[in-house]
């Protein structure tokens, strides 16, 4: 229904989970939350039609959305949590840190000192560092060089997708593969990637200059609120058990729906039999397979 439902291969992941053709996911009849946020779960600049259901990641987000006047709000959990439920963690070796510098979205520009951030990363991270840039910054040789000169490996997970165009169903798979190669996940702002990393078994850290978007107006309290409300996830070293509990709650990994219920909620068809329902494990089981 909304093009953002297809960002980051989300609809593809859920179609596969539902036993449907994940190369051509059906239309989701509602708005699917596509990133972690501290408001009602929806991107503030997206068009919203009243009466269309919101499919949100977590119970806390649902409560918040309700308090903001949203009705027909349903917690389904994050597509990332479904992906992890379908992709068992192998016994690969984890090493170093994957670092996500805060990025803007299309049309936004980040204001901040990348070199100072590089120094902070060097001071904290003991092992090899992979810096993952958003596609915009990755294309900028100038930005990339800040990190390459520091000896960091610089990668990009790909393009999240446009308005039903250039969709990239492999995006989350690349991200999962990278996260599972690293022992730690870090960023200068608490964001979806940090929660994804925690759920994928990385030890999290949030530190360094949080940088600013040009003309950034703090919505719902912005960074100061995030730093206060999720204070335990901030700092170079973070309690992993507490972090995991928070990630499970924020990504709704404890609230995943069975495929039949998800199909019913999205008004998706029943599978024809050509596509087989994937093997699914609970969030606790995933945690148990973590390789340190």
């Amino acid at each position, binding site marked *: 229904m909304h093009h953002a439902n297809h960002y980051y291969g989300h609809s593809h992941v859920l179609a596969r989970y539902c036993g449907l053709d994940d190369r051509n996911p059906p239309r989701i009849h509602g708005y699917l939350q596509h990133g972690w946020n501290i408001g009602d779960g929806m991107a503030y600049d997206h068009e919203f039609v009243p009466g269309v259901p919101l499919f949100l990641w977590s119970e*806390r987000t*649902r*409560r*918040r959305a*309700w*308090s*903001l*006047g949203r009705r027909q709000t349903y917690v389904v959990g994050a597509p990332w949590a479904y992906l992890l439920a379908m992709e068992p963690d192998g016994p690969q070796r984890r090493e170093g840190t994957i670092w996500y510098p805060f990025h803007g979205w299309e049309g936004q520009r980040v204001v901040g000192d990348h070199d100072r951030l590089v120094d902070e990363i060097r001071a904290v991270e003991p092992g090899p560092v992979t810096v993952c840039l958003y596609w915009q910054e990755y294309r900028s040789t100038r930005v990339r060089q800040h990190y390459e000169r520091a000896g960091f490996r610089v990668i990009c997970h790909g393009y999240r997708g446009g308005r039903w165009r250039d969709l990239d169903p492999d995006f989350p798979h690349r991200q999962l593969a990278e996260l599972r190669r690293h022992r730690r996940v870090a960023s200068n702002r608490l964001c979806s990637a940090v929660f994804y990393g925690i759920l994928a078994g990385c030890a999290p850290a949030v530190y360094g200059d949080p940088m600013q978007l040009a003309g950034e107006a703090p919505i*719902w*309290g912005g960074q100061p*609120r995030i730093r*206060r*409300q999720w204070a335990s996830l901030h700092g170079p070293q973070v309690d992993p058990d507490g972090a995991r509990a928070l990630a499970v709650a924020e990504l709704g990994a404890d609230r995943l729906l069975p495929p039949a219920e998800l199909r019913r909620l999205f008004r998706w068809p029943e599978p024809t039999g050509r596509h087989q329902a994937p093997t699914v494990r609970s969030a606790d089981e995933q945690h148990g397979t973590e390789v340190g």
Partner: protein
Amino acid sequence: MSEVHLLGGEMLGWSDLDGAHGPGPVRGPGLAALLSVASGRTLVVGPHDPQLLDALPSADLTVLVRGLPDAESLADRYADRSGVRVCCGGPEKLAGTAPYDTVVALDGLERLDSVEGTQLTWGEAFDLLVSVLRPGGRLLLGAENPLGLHRLLAAPPPSTDSDWAALGEYDDTRPAGPARLRARLTASGLRIGGVWAVFPSPIAPAALLDTELLADPDLTGFLQAVLGDPAVLGNQAVPGDRAVHGDGGGRTGDPGTGRDGPVPAAPLLADPARLAGSAVRNGIAGELAPAWVLLGERLPDPLTLTDQTVAARAHLADDRTKTVPPAALLMREGRLREVRRDPAGGWRFADGEAVPSGRTVEDLVVAATLRRDLPAVRALLTTWQSGAMAGTPADAVVVTPAGTWHGLSGATEPMFVLRRLASRLIDAGLADLWPAGELAAMLTTTAGRKPGSSVDDVSGAAAGGWRELLVDRDRLTRELSEARALQDWYERTLTERDDEMKRLRRIVALLHGTPTARAGRLLLAGARTARRTARSAVRRLRPTD
């Protein structure tokens, strides 16, 4: 602006006080008067009207709200009072704070949680508040009744932005009814200092009545008059109603929320004042109250009783001899009246006037009507209408066992109150005990007064609930079918009489005049008859075209 203490879990764009996301804060002068029981270090949790906060001792006052805009406006309001501390966030952050002498939660425990924080059940929130109460300290707690008159007779209220996880009566940790609430407080080590039933809404009560007073059968008439007052549950639509509406706080209630004001916009299933009157008569008004306010005093733990707590307790006990809460707080004609127990027996208003026992004139008239005791009805109506209470509604006049009459509301025109009585008898389904269609005129005549114009005498159901409308519709249907049958009978009778008159007129005409003229008219009449007969014979013989 003074500082807001952020506890965590604050709701940034949220206000309970502005009424945009729900029914607004709990409010009203009755509740403010009840706050006289507060003393010492005081904590207020949940949305309370700032005027209530003004009534509290401000030397050491902590106010906890969940919305940041509310906290900021309160901090601004109390910027010049150093003893007032405004906190913002979820109630779970209170755990472990230094204990308080008084904890005030008049709004109840349902609007404490923040969307960001832990969602506490009623029982968890209650235990939390008790845990921050010093031994000897007082808890003033509001509790809405899911089976209260405000809910029982209304369509289900629409959910508000505040109901993101509202359990309501499905919260099994929530004690149901005043008896279980008392038991829950007692089980948590609190001594019950008072239980007040709250009318007409949990948010803006205009009457707070001690449940003991409410259950006193001697006060049936007084209580019915109190609950039937327009400021409480009375309906303005009844002609000649007694006073101007208020919501207990001197402001206009929001007509969109049944929980908020005495006159909800949506039609009610029945007139709540009538049900309240019946509940008083049957001794269950306390159980049907929209909400209750409980005062609990935390007993000192005997194991940890130190000299200090004994001293503190003695100190508080001294204070309390001055602050025994009133048994009733009533908004009457725009001002607050207090009722206290008379040590000599019975109940008295603060000015010393005794609260009248007995029944209302309306109740007595209804009982006499049901007995078909017309002399008693006549005696009541004439005594009422020839005395000083002639302009006071029959449901607001109490006749004591000693035979004295007490008016409990302001007076208006006698014709208004007679019509009001007629309407209320119709609402009660008693219209068929009187001659159809003219109850007001009948009552007026029986009362020894000259009826007014016929338009004024037309009475109908006026309370506006579906029950009263159905009763009135059935009455009108019956009266209409009776009126149609009567009309048919008139038509038939009239036709018979018209035919008779025509025949007689013809005979009179024939017999009228001189003998010669009479013979001529008879001849002409015979010729006309013969011509008509011939014409019709020709028509019959002629072939058709």
